[in-house]
């Protein structure tokens, strides 16, 4: 799914790296616990979260994720936007809640992925 399609489905506002919204993502992960996100492996993924701090961007960067969606109208800080710009990660914000945002993406064909076994 193109990142631009995610923007459209979630009626989201792109906050940075709009030039990368033509990229494809193949899976998604919705969580406020970053260690749970880190347990999940797949590149070119999108992260949906309601957590706002710099570690959200670092987690996405470590996972080679391409896009972060902040749900429930949460907005990233200037520092987070700067970190995302450096890493080329698209940040967007939606008014939708986590459950609905994930449901919209899932029902339109963007599925989750398995947690890697220990």
């Amino acid at each position, binding site marked *: 799914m193109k990142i631009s399609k995610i923007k459209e489905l979630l009626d989201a506002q792109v906050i940075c790296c709009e030039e990368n919204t033509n990229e494809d993502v193949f899976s998604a992960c919705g969580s406020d616990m970053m260690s749970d996100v880190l347990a999940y492996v797949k590149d070119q993924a999108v992260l949906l979260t309601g957590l706002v701090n*710099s570690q959200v961007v670092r*987690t996405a960067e*470590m996972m*080679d994720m391409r896009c972060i969606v902040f749900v429930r109208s949460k907005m990233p800080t200037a*520092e987070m936007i700067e970190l995302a710009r450096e890493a080329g990660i698209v940040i967007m914000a939606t008014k939708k809640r986590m459950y609905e945002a994930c449901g919209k993406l899932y029902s339109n064909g963007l599925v989750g992925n398995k947690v*890697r076994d*220990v």
Partner: protein
Amino acid sequence: MSELLKFHFDVDGTDFTSAGQASVQVKKNLRQLGIPPEIIRRVSIAMYEGEINMVIHAGGGEADVIVTETAIEIRLHDHGPGIKNIDQAMQEGFSTATDTIRTLGFGAGMGLPNMKRYSDDIEIHSELGVGTDIIMRVNLT
């Protein structure tokens, strides 16, 4: 196993916001060396979890990343409180982190399990009141 390159980092234990900077730098360095992306991802996630652990539990520490022809080794060293029961700490979901840490998105009890998950080999040496040393290896071949 001859050492080709070594990167050293001091991990600041006072600033949660800056935690992960060393892992970001390692990721950049490994990219420049032309290491395959999947290996880089495993090394950087394992190190990032280690870095976060050092910041939230141990007041910071030191990290060394050693690149050889056959593996990438991450050595973490801290003077924190030590791990009381390593077997318990390795269980997913077990955590001694405070609620404050949880509100920051960590302390889900996935740190050490994730470090094991992404490395080919992990050694943990810990002494209560002295500190913890962790060596993780990700094989290149």
